[in-house]
């Protein structure tokens, strides 16, 4: 119903409005300068602007610096085990489809130990919003190379420099058949970060946002070339994607109009080398969500449950020898 009735208008007037600080729980223990702070600010802005009810919002995480996120949000949260942020989030969504479920995972948690869950979560396409906090290093465990670390990264486990080419999370997600929303953001352009987070929230399906994030402690100089030269950030814009404001457009002049429905162009952009693409790479609103297939209109009354149980038990019941008793009675 687009038009609101008088009662609905009055009810909306009575609703309490929460400020940004109302979503803040505790003081973040991330390093000063960590990109996670920017992501936290953007997500809290989203909660305030969309009026998300804290008791209807869940943040699910695995293990890593990124996964400290639920501790700092005054909503429901689940800090799970390593690599299993996505399965837990899918379980929450299936049993409570009415909740807004967000997933905070890192480059180790998602692309290394959690890689299997990652692929299948994309296929299920449940209505989740997934943030990949990609700082290209294992930060919490004090500097080991991750799958997205650039080749040659010197770390505790790769003292002579890592030997494998970095995994590209964008091309991997764009390669999964059922994908419905893929976007990339950088934590040092807060305006675009917020717009992408908002678009990801509004998309109905699995929204995968890779946030390229600075780690000032272990990889302080890694992103300097892109931080200091705005032209090495390519802003993707489109009527169906992001709109670039005038002020931002003056600083970030490297812009490309890219249609989010064009999968081949998205894959080309994702595979590109020099400039970091920022924006919505792919967005298909029509992909169905797994929880919709499983939803039933039947009301789970006690009678329904009882009849279902009885039907199952009847398959295994050993019937008393009613047949023999009957024939005996007939004979008599």
């Amino acid at each position: 119903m687009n038009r609101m009735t008088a009662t609905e208008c009055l009810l909306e007037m009575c609703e309490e409005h929460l400020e940004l600080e109302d979503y803040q729980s505790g003081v973040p223990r991330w390093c000063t300068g960590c990109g996670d702070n920017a992501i936290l600010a953007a997500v809290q802005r989203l909660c305030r602007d969309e009026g998300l009810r804290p008791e209807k919002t869940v943040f699910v995480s695995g293990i890593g610096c990124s996964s400290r996120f639920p501790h700092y949000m005054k909503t429901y949260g689940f800090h799970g085990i390593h690599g299993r942020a996505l399965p837990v989030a899918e379980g929450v969504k299936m049993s409570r489809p009415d909740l807004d479920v967000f997933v905070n995972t890192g480059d180790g948690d998602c692309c290394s130990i959690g890689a299997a869950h990652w692929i299948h979560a994309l296929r299920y396409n449940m209505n989740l919003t997934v943030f990949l906090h990609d700082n290209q290093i294992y930060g919490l465990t004090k500097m080991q190379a991750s799958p997205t670390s650039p080749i040659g990264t010197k770390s505790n486990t790769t003292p002579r420099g890592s030997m494998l080419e970095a995994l590209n999370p964008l091309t991997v997600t764009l390669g999964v058949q059922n994908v419905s929303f893929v976007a990339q953001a950088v934590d040092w352009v807060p305006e675009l970060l917020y717009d992408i987070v908002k678009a990801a929230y509004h998309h109905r399906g699995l929204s995968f946002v890779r946030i390229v994030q600075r780690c000032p402690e272990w990889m302080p100089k890694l992103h300097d070339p892109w931080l200091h030269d705005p032209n090495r950030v390519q802003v993707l814009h489109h009527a169906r994607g992001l709109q670039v404001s005038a002020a931002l457009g003056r600083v970030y002049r490297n812009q490309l109009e890219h249609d989010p429905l064009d999968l081949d162009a998205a894959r080309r952009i994702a595979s590109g080398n020099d400039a970091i693409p920022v924006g919505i790479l792919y967005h298909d609103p029509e992909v169905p969500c797994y929880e919709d297939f499983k939803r039933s209109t039947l009301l789970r009354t006690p009678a329904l449950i009882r009849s279902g149980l009885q039907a199952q038990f009847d398959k295994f019941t050993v019937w008393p020898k009613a047949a023999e008793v009957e024939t005996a009675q007939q004979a008599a």
Partner: protein
Amino acid sequence: MDANATHSDRVAFYLTGRRAEGMREVGALRPALQARYRDLTSLRHDFPLVLATSGDAAAPSLTALVDAALASIAKGADAERARRQVLRVEQEVRVLLQQGVEGTLAKLWSDATARLAPGRDASLAEAARRARATIAVDGPLLRCDATLPERLLQHVWQQEQQRKQTALRERLVRLIQQLSDILRADFERSGAGRDATRLKASVGSGHGDLFDFDAMSRVLARATPREPMPEARRERIRRLLGVLDAQPFVALPDENAARAAGHAAYGYRFDSCAAALAAWRERLPKLIELARAIEVAELEIDGRYHAERHDALFASYGANGLEPDLLSHFPDVFVCLDGTSLDAAEQTRLMEILAGELPIKVLYRVDDLLAALDDAAAPTSPGLRCRQIAHMAMGLNQVYVLHAAASHLPRCGERIARAMRFAGPSLFCIYSGASGAATGQSTYLAAAAAMESRAFPAFVYDPSGGPDWASRFHLDDNPQPELDWPIHRFEYEDARLQRVSVELAFTFVDFAAGDARFAPHLARLTPGSDESDLAPIDEMLLREAGRLPERIPCVRMIDERDRLHTVLVDEQMMRKARRSREMWHSLQELGGVHNSHANRLLERERAAWEASHAAASALPAATPAAIEAQAAATSLLAEAVPEPEAAAPSRDDAYIETVRCSTCNECTQINPKMFAYDANKQAYIADLKAGTYAQLVEAAESCQVSVIHPGKPQNENEPGLAELLVRAEPFR
């Protein structure tokens, strides 16, 4: 001489109605254009209808069903024969109906087959059986008679009602279930819910002796939540359950009705406005209570009901009346009125219903359109009264009005369904054609003639169709709506056995001429009379009234043996016809056909366009130099506007580009009083005096996104300024 005398006799008849010699009574004549429609049983027309309970259409016609069946079974070598046989059975069904046999399609089809089968070979029965098997729907057959409007509309209304009641019932059952679940969950977590006997009962008989239930109960009692549900909330939920269980609007399935035993659901079908209004007024408080209970229940289940905020709101719920969109979820009321015999009080109540936007669907059935012209006791004919009511309803703007003759109803399926779904009052003005005053005409033909002659045109006013008359009002179902009267080709054999083809208009007079009450105003001429001074009605109406007529209006009619006669018409009839034509014109204007406002606007625009066109061609062609000069002027103007912000101005004050701040906490860690976060958690300079220039420069250097600009130092006496200014240089 003879011709003149006859002519002045004719003029005398026209002006006074006095018949001279050579003019006879009309007797049992019918309008000429109805010549081909004598025996309706052999005509494959829209009737009979099947009141189907399944399938897409609420009431498909037999013709359509048989056509669909033939399309699928009449294939191959046998196609033509099967087709003929099935059509013969269809015709027999019509014969049975005309003889008064009632029943469903299945019954009548088998009866018809049984009657035809003896005397024909077995293939007829076989073809009929196959056709019947392909037709998926079944239901009572409806002829076009006086009961058609009521039965058809009630059928469609009931289908819509079923849908609404099912939806409402499901919603209520779900709400009751979820509210009961809340109460039960609360009970289970309370002390009483965790006592030993209940725990033992919940484990089941197989494992009852494995546990010490007293101990279990003691352990669980200690784990009882410290904040049980407030008693006020529990009481509120119980009250809600009471209202939802006991509501009288829809019947709930048995399981839940056990709590509300003895409560019959309301009835929704009435025969008078008085009864409908009384019922509405009596039920309104209960309706408001139920609507309020549903809204509060939804909030309560979602956990969003806050007594301190919402109690006052819901205390006065419905005081302003309930909106039509909300009411559309509840079943609505159907009233059948007989318009031919409606008194003034009932009419006032009808207008009250329509003006009050109550969700009531009204059938206003008129059996007889015309009243005899000289009848002083009935100054307004029923047809006119019906038209008045339809116009008044349209003027209220929020009433769905469908005005049609019964013969047209099979084509209105979609419109009728929309009317029944409309959230608000709907008015159906239907002329059934069953007056019996028309000589030798079936009900269907009488109704069809009324529509054809514009005496009872078909129009629809659909408020849900859009914001303006163009999208709401539809006249296009009428034949040839851009003409005054529909014109048809008529062929006959003249005295010399030559085929003559003329175009005849079917006018109001043709419709009324078949009615016995108008016989005094018609005079039949002897065949073979001179017809040079006669003219058809539509031509005569185009001339002005009131002058001595040179020509006399006449109509063509036929008798039972299909012989053609010419019938004179007097002035009173012509006046009626003129009025009918004018009423049709005003309907046309409403429907946008020959709309006078549109025409005048078009004329003005055309004159303006012609004037400007003439002026433009009168000027000499613009010289190339002039055009260039104009182009240059515009480009100069464009360049004159300076490029905004070609370079960012360097300011002397310290500032932060707050919009680009990435909330990394570097500057707030350095000096939380100088640097603060705004409502979006992005940094700005809160108090410049709260810190030193050194701190500004340090913050600028540590800022990850380099958005801090230290500017010039405020305090000239700060130590180490020279080195700091050098460090601050890149951040200008």
